[in-house]
């Protein structure tokens, strides 16, 4: 008797194509994850429930931690222009080489007198912890503080080059004493920068 063969269909799917797609997507996401710059002042931001993201350009970040204030602003052209303006304001000449090196520096915090030294250093040395003492926030006699100048000149540079109003954000350490933050806020208020953002990490409402 002829045996009725039940055709057995194979249920195994060839997953090679799916695997290829998955690794392609993975490569894309790994490459678009921008590598974080090492910060000279690591700061632990406090948490809050607000979910608004910061804009990427035309925003200066004042990092406040351990009594020091560091300044950073994105945009190589703005940094270059800012350095030239600060040089004029404080009577310091910066060479073309120094201007180029400064325009790739991210966050920094030194009195203007030591700026040339910091520019000359290499990236890893610069960002060593404890090396940079922070931008001075106290005013010298009638002259406004250096931080005031940095913020003011950066606002000028942003307006001239990008025709935008520069925004200011404050990235403070959670355990920083309030008077330090109040000093920075006062410097901003004295320039009529009454709106700024505080950088926080995310948390839920139940705490």
């Amino acid at each position, binding site marked *: 008797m002829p045996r009725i063969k039940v055709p057995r269909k194979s249920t195994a799917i060839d*997953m090679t194509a799916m695997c290829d797609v998955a690794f392609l997507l993975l490569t894309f*996401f790994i490459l678009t994850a921008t590598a974080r710059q090492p910060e000279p002042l690591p700061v632990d931001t406090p948490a*809050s429930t*607000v979910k*608004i*993201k910061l804009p990427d350009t035309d925003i200066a970040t004042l990092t406040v931690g351990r009594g020091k204030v560091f300044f950073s602003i994105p945009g190589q052209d703005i940094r270059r222009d800012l350095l030239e303006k600060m040089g004029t304001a404080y009577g310091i000449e910066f060479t073309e080489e120094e201007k180029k090196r400064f325009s790739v520096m991210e966050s920094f915090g030194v009195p203007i007198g030591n700026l040339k030294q910091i520019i000359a250093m290499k990236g890893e040395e610069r960002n060593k912890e404890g090396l940079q003492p922070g931008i001075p926030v106290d005013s010298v006699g009638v002259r406004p503080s250096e931080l005031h100048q940095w913020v003011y000149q950066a606002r000028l540079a942003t307006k001239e080059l990008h025709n935008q109003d520069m925004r200011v954000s404050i990235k403070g350490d959670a355990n920083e004493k309030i008077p330090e933050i109040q000093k920075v806020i006062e410097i901003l208020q004295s320039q009529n920068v009454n*709106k700024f953002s505080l*950088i926080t990490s995310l948390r839920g409402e139940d705490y």
Partner: protein
Amino acid sequence: MAELDTSGGGGKKGGKIRTKKMSTRVDLTAMVDLAFLLITFFMLTTTLSKPQAMDIAMPDKDVKEQQQLTIADNRTMTILLGSGNRVEWYMGAVEKPLTPPQVDNYGKNGIRKALLEKKKEVIAMTGDPAKSLIVLIKPSEKSKYRNLVDILDEMAIVKPQTYAIVDIFEPEIELLKREGLYQ
């Protein structure tokens, strides 16, 4: 999962010993799962690593103190930020507070409950939901930055009519000292 199919070589009968052709079929499902897990991880970490921003607007520095004080006392709540992650609050003016100053913690069961209660009371009193609580936040020297952010967070959650960050007065520092919140 991975199967080694050794039956292909069999069936041939012959004197010579032939090397059996083994066909290997590897099931790639696990590898795909892993790849998608990694994708999800990278997708979430690159967007979450962008810091969040909490906007603040400060009053103009040149505005005189007097102008700020001409607001209804019975709608104003003053919150003093003390040390040890605690706050002290009262309604009205410091010389004669409308409620005795009370100490609270941050968070849902602490200051948030008080804020929500008072906001409801004020709305009931004025009868106008647009005219609700006014909050004055006075950070003391002994408080931390995270305390300020926590209180501003509460403002974002509770949504009073207005709030402002102002300087603290001497009598209020005395209040804090009395409760041991000024270390």
